[in-house]
């Protein structure tokens, strides 16, 4: 134990005596926090430059331009489409919006956005903000259109209801007419034209009279007259019959038409009733609800905060990653290049004591940096953190820091010069960073690679820290991550030990 303390004391003294190293250790995290704090202590985007172009701005396109213009977006009207697109390439614009000429609701033209997709994270944030602004305008227009549509529908309904009674009365009067017509037809049918003519009887009587009277001349005129009357009578009866028959036929046609009209008017009445019922059955008449029938609200699972709070776990892991890798590898390389390295080997001190001494020294310095970061973060930004969360987060940070420090030590033992060790540390850091969620979500990786990448200590540590710092969960929620980190530490300790043994051979070959 005494040897371990002496090694740690020696390492710290060596670090402090190198002024530049001491400054980096103490001021590095402060500078980092200052810069990141200034940059991310907000939830907004700043100074997003949006270019717009249209060969002919309409009222709608102008209103969208006005809608975009606020403290986050600087909107510039560009006089040329090609120039607008080129300005993205030169970095003068973030988005170029091309409005179709005379954009109106009557046309199907599209608004086109040009973006630089190489700025993957950024482009989706901008598109999201712009889309939400345009969606607001689109909803306004939609509301106006729907409102007008609804009002027309209501008017039609009212008018149909109004006219529905007329149709009913029309239908009734047609029925009455049909009934009267039936009566007429019946009356006509009842005209009996089959009366037996009594002219035979008249002639018989006349004959008897003539016989009685034997004055046939006297009755001849009468007989002629009667014949004439009989003839007229027959003509009349024929005419009446003919009239009755033709009237009956015409009335039958009228009756059929009337029946059809009655049916039609009943159909119209029924349709009007159905339309009315349909219109009346529409339950939702509120325009806003018709425009957005499903309303959504996105609620954060952690308290709303600034970008700094959200990125704080990532920031901590990032500091640990580079501080751990670089500090540990530099310490080991300096030790190996030191004149005293050989003497350490020939002292009766087990190798594991030197490994632990270097490891604990680096852990101490990295934790010191973290303490500074926490003080700045929670002191200057007046954020709150409970003691238990602080304690839990330091457990994870110590484990994660150990992994990075042991990786750094491994690099220190693997590479012969400080330069190559630094390059190796930065390269390893970049790989771990690139295959994490910081630059691209790991969900964008193929599943086979993702299976491996999910064991990246950067991801494991960040995931555990997010649970503790953002969601205030306890260590039991991060047990899986803790097991992985502990396994890493155990494995790396063995590998570091083996590489220290190998470094003896290197020293011998020198």
């Amino acid at each position, binding site marked *: 134990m*005494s*040897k371990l303390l*002496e090694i740690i004391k*020696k390492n710290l*003294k*060596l670090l402090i*005596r*190198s002024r530049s190293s001491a400054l980096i250790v103490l001021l590095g995290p402060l500078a980092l926090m200052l810069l990141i704090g200034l940059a991310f202590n907000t939830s907004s985007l700043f100074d997003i430059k949006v270019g717009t172009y249209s060969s002919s701005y309409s009222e709608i396109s102008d209103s969208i331009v006005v809608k975009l213009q606020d403290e986050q977006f600087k909107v510039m009207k560009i006089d040329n489409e090609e120039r607008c697109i080129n300005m993205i390439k030169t970095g003068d614009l973030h988005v170029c919006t091309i409005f179709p000429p005379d954009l109106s609701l009557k046309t199907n033209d599209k608004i086109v956005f040009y973006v630089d997709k190489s700025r993957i994270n950024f482009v989706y944030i901008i598109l999201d903000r712009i889309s939400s602004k345009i969606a607001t305008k689109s909803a306004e227009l939609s509301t106006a259109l729907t409102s007008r549509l609804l009002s027309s529908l209501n008017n039609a309904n009212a008018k149909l209801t109004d006219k529905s009674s007329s149709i009913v009365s029309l239908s009734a009067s047609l029925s009455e007419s049909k009934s009267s017509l039936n009566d007429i037809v019946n009356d006509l049918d009842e005209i009996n034209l089959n009366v037996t003519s009594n002219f035979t009887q008249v002639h018989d009587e006349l004959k008897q009279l003539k016989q009685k009277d034997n004055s046939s001349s006297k009755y001849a005129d009468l007989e002629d007259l009667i014949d004439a009357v009989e003839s007229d009578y027959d003509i009349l009866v024929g005419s009446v019959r003919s009239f009755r028959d033709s009237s009956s036929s015409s009335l039958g046609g009228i009756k059929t038409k009337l029946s059809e009209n009655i049916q039609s008017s009943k159909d119209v009445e029924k349709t009007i009733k159905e339309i009315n019922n349909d219109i009346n059955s529409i339950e939702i008449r509120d325009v806003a609800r018709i425009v957005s029938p499903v309303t959504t609200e996105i609620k954060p699972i952690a308290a709303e905060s600034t970008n700094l709070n959200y990125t704080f776990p990532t920031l901590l892991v990032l500091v640990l990653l580079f501080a751990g890798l670089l500090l540990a590898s530099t310490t080991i390389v300096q030790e190996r290049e*030191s*004149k*005293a*390295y*050989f*003497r*350490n*080997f*020939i*002292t*009766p*001190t087990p190798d594991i004591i030197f490994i632990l001494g270097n490891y604990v020294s680096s852990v101490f310095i990295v934790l010191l940096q973290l303490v500074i970061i926490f003080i700045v973060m929670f002191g200057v930004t007046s954020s709150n953190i409970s003691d238990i969360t602080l304690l839990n987060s330091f457990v994870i940070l110590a484990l994660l820091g150990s992994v990075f420090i042991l990786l750094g030590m491994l690099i220190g033992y693997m590479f012969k010069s400080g330069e190559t060790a630094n390059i190796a540390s930065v390269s390893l850091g970049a790989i771990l960073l690139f295959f994490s969620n910081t630059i691209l979500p790991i969900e964008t990786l193929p599943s086979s690679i993702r299976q491996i990448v999910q064991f990246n200590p950067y991801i494991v540590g960040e995931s555990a820290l997010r649970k503790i710092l953002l969601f205030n969960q306890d260590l039991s929620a991060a047990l899986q991550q803790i097991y992985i980190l502990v396994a890493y530490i155990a494995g790396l300790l063995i590998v570091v030990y083996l590489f220290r043994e190998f470094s*003896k051979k290197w020293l*011998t*070959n020198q």
Partner: protein
Amino acid sequence: MAEQPFIQFENITKTFGKKVILDNLSLGIPYKDIFGVIGKSGSGKTTLLCILVGFLKPDKGQVLFQSRDINKDLQSVQQQFGFAAQEGSFYPKLTVEENLWYFGKMYNINSNILKEKIVELLRLVDLEDSHDLIAWKLSSGMQKRLDIACALVHDPKVLILDEPTEDLDPALRNEVLDLLKKINREKDITIIITSHLLDEVEYVCKEVAILDQKKVIDSGNINELKNKYAKYSEVSLELEDRDYTHIIKRLKHKKDVKKYSIRGNKIYIYTTQKNEKALKEILSLTKKNKSKVISISMGKPSLTELFEELTKKEEVKNVKVTGDNKKES
């Protein structure tokens, strides 16, 4: 039964890859002497010392320290050895005292004892006034003394120094060599040094081992080795003008002069003549040329001469062996 040496290398073989560095080497080092291991660069001197302190393990053979195999109880044996490497082995950004404290602790020394030990060592290596100076600010001589102090902090029974005077100017070399003599005198300690600067080895060591061709050619007391191998008398001459051209001209015609060499300010002449006759002839040469003699001495050849003679022999022997092998094959 012969007394077992303090340190005994037994049939040590060490290879790095396919390169054989030490081949079946055996050597005994006596107690409480300053023992020199001499050899050309790359002859395996440093490897031998690294095996001795347990930093390297031999492929074959064993090293016995006080009749114990060092690799069987390495940690306790390491406690008995102090090592000062050629380039120094301390932390340049720690002070003199902090370096001593740190290495004392690495050797499990109790804090109270260590405090006293540091005071004593600072006095011994004459760094009392520089105890709080950062090590890299010390002069190279002071750094060498600090390195030796670091090697002595745990009171070892054996102090091993690899090329201790390498990269030092002559004045500092003498300072270090005198310090070694002082340490050997004041402390109950065996000192082993390696060097290719044989005059210095001869200055401080009583016994040497000569390493060549991956093994020890011979070892023992320097004078005994000289008696064993010396064929010529050595005359060393220093003239005021240091112009030896006229003497060399004359020497070329003399059959009894086997060779000569100029080292430093002196000319060394090796002759088969008896001492007195050789001396008279050389003095008469200087008189003829009216050269002023600063010093003249004669005796057995130096360690350097002995080493050159012995390693040349070994080379010839090896060439012959190789030639024979070729014939056989």
